[in-house]
């Protein structure tokens, strides 16, 4: 097996592993949405401000998984190792 194809195959594997970064942010976003639902159930009049706070928090939590996606894409499209 030549080195180039080994690196390409391992890069594809690494890109797959990179998408696992979605695991943590998905969990976090789900917890945030659940807590927001609880808060709306307790205080229905504060719905709009709870919603926008939840969205900001979820957007920040999403950053990690977006970084994972970007690294996966770099490994697949513009591999620096080959």
């Amino acid at each position, binding site marked *: 097996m030549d080195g180039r194809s080994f690196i390409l195959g391992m890069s594809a594997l690494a890109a797959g592993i990179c998408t696992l970064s979605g695991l943590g942010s998905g969990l976090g976003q789900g917890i945030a949405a659940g807590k927001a639902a609880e808060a709306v159930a307790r205080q229905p009049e504060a719905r709009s401000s709870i919603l926008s706070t939840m969205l900001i928090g979820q957007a920040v939590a999403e950053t990690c998984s*977006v970084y994972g*996606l*970007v690294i996966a894409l770099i490994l697949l499209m513009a591999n620096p190792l080959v």
Partner: protein
Amino acid sequence: MDFSNRYHAVLFHLGDTPVYLTDTLIATWIVMGILILLAAAVRVRLHRFQDVPGAFQNLMEIAVETMENFTKTTMGPGNEAFAPYFFGVFAFILFSNYSGLFGLRQPTADLATTGALAIMTFVLIHFRGIRKKKWGYVKEYFSPHPIMFPINFVGEISKPISLAFRLFGNMLGGVIIMSLVYGMLPLALRVILPDILHAYFDIFAGSLQAFIFTILSMTFIAEKSAVE
């Protein structure tokens, strides 16, 4: 399966580097054209606006008033002057994201566009902070203890990077999944089935990301320029 940013022609040479006419550039020009035409239409009709608004005037007034109220509630008093700027940014990102519905490649699925938008926010954050706080701005980097300076500094640098990558990654993910689905389906089925995905990736995620970019920029600027 084609989701790369295609090069169509060489526009001009910058030194030895050729500057290409890309998909992103075409889509950006179309979005800019639509926004400029809309603004011109509003400007021409402005002197004919009446106390009892018609449909078009009503729509425009609702949009502007919503943005002003939103800026006021998010950024606090004293920052109302940011409303027109953020209205422009929001409209540009929203129209860019919706342009995927018309077969264009979204300009926001290119790191150059989102990076430029994030640099604009970055410059605003720090100019506003320095003008509002003077020396308190520098002191903030060394609080609560001078040993925290590297952490504070890296935190400031990472803000525009995370802003740019969030918008870019979300839109590019949509573009990739859409092109995979289009490549998978036979020609006859490409009409109806991807509509649901378009509704999610272009309309729902597009609106959400435009909203999140605007509200995060607002929060960053407001918290950096808040005087205790």
